[in-house]
């Protein structure tokens, strides 16, 4: 009996083309699009600015500045000023006049931190050139001082020993996008689940099954099992998209790094959670339209809060605290720990436990509501 119920549910969902699109195609497309679109934002490579330099001073000092900028790999010299992110104009007599200012024209799309970074690099070369000019001037009168001055180190990279604090690793765009859209896609089982549930209730099929001595537990469990397997297939298809499809678009491939068992553990927890919340919405709604609307909005809100749309590490602290309320965030944390910190099963157990508890409680509550709906005709 139970296998027939599972088979029926599976047949119904596999024949729903729209549901399959929402469950498989939508998250796969999101993974590719978002990984590629956010590639540069998440990149740890040097930021490259396109620069156009207009040297009206044409002094030895200004030439040194221009040469230094040309040699700097941070810059890519633009052939026209229209193509450039930055237009730097060194005015006439800049070397002679101490009050002269550089003219900087910046594309309005640039961010504040990019402008600050550019200003720091230009300042480094200007001060270095000015310092060397002063050194040249004083050399005939005080050669020892000039020698000391000329050995002065301006390269900021040699000022510090740069080291990353690995307690908070940041993902690249693929490492962020794959788990985020896996989690989001898994919760989209609400669409087929609610449509089937509401139709069954409206058409009295659930009542008919109940009159055939089918228990609510068997009904709920038989509906959950197919979606559990669909969720597991979703996870591995999306991981495959991250590993094999995303790199085709010049974007880093996904590396699992951690334990495969840990991936399974988080996937199981997430599936329980997704099934729980989907069932709860499906049994509470009065129509499939209502269920898909509430389900869709809930998914988007849980995703927005939980770091699917905006990564949690760029959220303000208050939002990061709020994110802890979303089961999507628990799943996302679990996957990120596996992909970034090579976490094992034990390390993600807390995330699994939270997800599984949330799922089981939601399913229990759903059964109570379903019981009331069938027996009281609510």
């Amino acid at each position, binding site marked *: *009996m139970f*296998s*027939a*119920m599972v*088979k*029926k549910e599976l*047949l*119904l969902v596999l*024949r*729903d083309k729209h549901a399959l699109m929402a469950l498989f195609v939508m998250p796969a497309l999101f993974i590719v699009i978002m990984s590629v679109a956010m590639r540069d934002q998440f990149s740890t490579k040097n930021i490259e600015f396109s620069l156009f330099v207009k040297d009206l001073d044409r002094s030895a000092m200004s030439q040194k500045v221009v040469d230094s900028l040309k040699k700097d790999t941070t810059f890519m010299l633009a052939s026209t000023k229209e193509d450039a992110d930055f237009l730097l104009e060194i005015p006439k007599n800049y070397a002679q006049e101490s009050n002269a200012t550089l003219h900087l024209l910046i594309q309005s799309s640039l961010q504040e931190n990019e402008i600050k970074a550019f200003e720091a690099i230009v300042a480094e070369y200007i001060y270095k050139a000015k310092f060397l000019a002063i050194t040249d001037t004083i050399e005939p009168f005080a050669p020892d001082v000039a020698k000391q001055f000329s050995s002065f180190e301006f390269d900021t990279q040699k000022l510090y020993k740069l080291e990353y604090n690995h307690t908070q690793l940041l993902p690249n765009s693929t490492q962020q996008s794959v788990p985020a859209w896996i989690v989001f896609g898994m919760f989209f089982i609400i669409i087929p689940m609610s449509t089937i549930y509401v139709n069954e209730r*409206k*058409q*009295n*099929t659930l*009542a*008919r*099954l*109940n*009159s*055939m*001595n*089918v228990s609510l537990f068997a009904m709920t469990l038989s509906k959950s099992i197919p979606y559990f397997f669909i969720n597991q297939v979703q996870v591995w298809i999306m991981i495959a998209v991250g590993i094999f499809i995303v790199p085709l678009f010049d974007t880093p491939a996904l590396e699992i790094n951690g334990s495969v068992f840990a991936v399974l553990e988080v996937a199981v927890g997430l599936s329980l959670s997704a099934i729980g919340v989907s069932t709860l919405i499906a049994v509470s709604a009065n129509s499939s339209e209502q269920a898909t609307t509430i389900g869709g909005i809930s998914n988007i809100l849980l995703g927005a809060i939980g770091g699917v749309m905006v990564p949690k590490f760029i959220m303000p602290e208050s939002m990061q605290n709020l994110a802890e309320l979303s089961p999507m965030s628990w799943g996302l944390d679990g996957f990120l720990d596996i992909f970034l910190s090579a976490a094992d099963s034990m390390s993600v157990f807390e995330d699994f436990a939270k997800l599984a508890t949330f799922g089981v409680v939601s399913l229990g509550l759903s059964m109570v509501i379903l019981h009331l709906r*069938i*027996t*009281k*005709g609510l």
Partner: protein
Amino acid sequence: MLKVKNLTKRYGTKVALDNLSLEIKKGSVFGLLGVNGAGKTTLLSILNGLIDFDEGEVEVDGISLKKERKKVKSFSSIIPQHLAFYENLTVKENLDFFASVQKATQQDYEKAVEVNSLDALLDQKASTLSGGQKRRLNIAIGLLNNPKIIYFDEPTVGIDPKSRNEILDSIKEYKQLGITVVYTSHYMSEIERICDEVAIVNEGRVLEQDRLENLLSNRVSDRVIVECVYSEKLQTLGLTLLDSSSIVTTQEQLFEVLELLQKSGIALKHIRYGSTNLEKYFLEITGESSV
């Protein structure tokens, strides 16, 4: 077969069934009549073990519903008004699913298919069936557990006269198979045509229960109902029809009607004399202005 004694069901302060009692004989086709909100659906839901009742006793085939609900459910069946199956599955997939759920035997499965003429439709997706075919599938599912008693909740709503006729004929076949049928409908003509006994329910109580002919014959009338084998020609003869295969006439006009039927090649099934109209009687007893 079914004994209901002083059954009471309340929804909060509203009394849906008020000390309702009735008795249904084994193998009979029993009509349950009542306006919307009379308590028919609540009664059917209780009899099918879907909802609890507050007071009273229900015995189905000698078994207490309260004590052995699961057992009673195993030999009862409800044919809901809505099409309670899966439109995205084929007829066979639907039947296989419900047969597995009820652990139906191959014999019962084949009987349900045969009685409802579904053989040729097995591989067809349920959503592509006609209204009448869907109704037949809905009924076939209810037969899979070889029930001793079947409850029909308005099974002919929204279907064409031909399909309605087929369904009503098939219900008569269940009687031959020894199955007890409890039938609710808004169509008085259907009740008149297939039921042996009728209970009129109003405001949660049974106002009257008797054999149909007793109910109607008690009211002296020269009304005659001529039941024929279904033929589309019947619609073209200009006679007053009770339903797609029954004619209402008077004793005075009966001879002319029979002559006309003979000329048209329409075969007779049954003639009922002296009965009043069930609808008229129903309205009289319930004090309603319409059904």
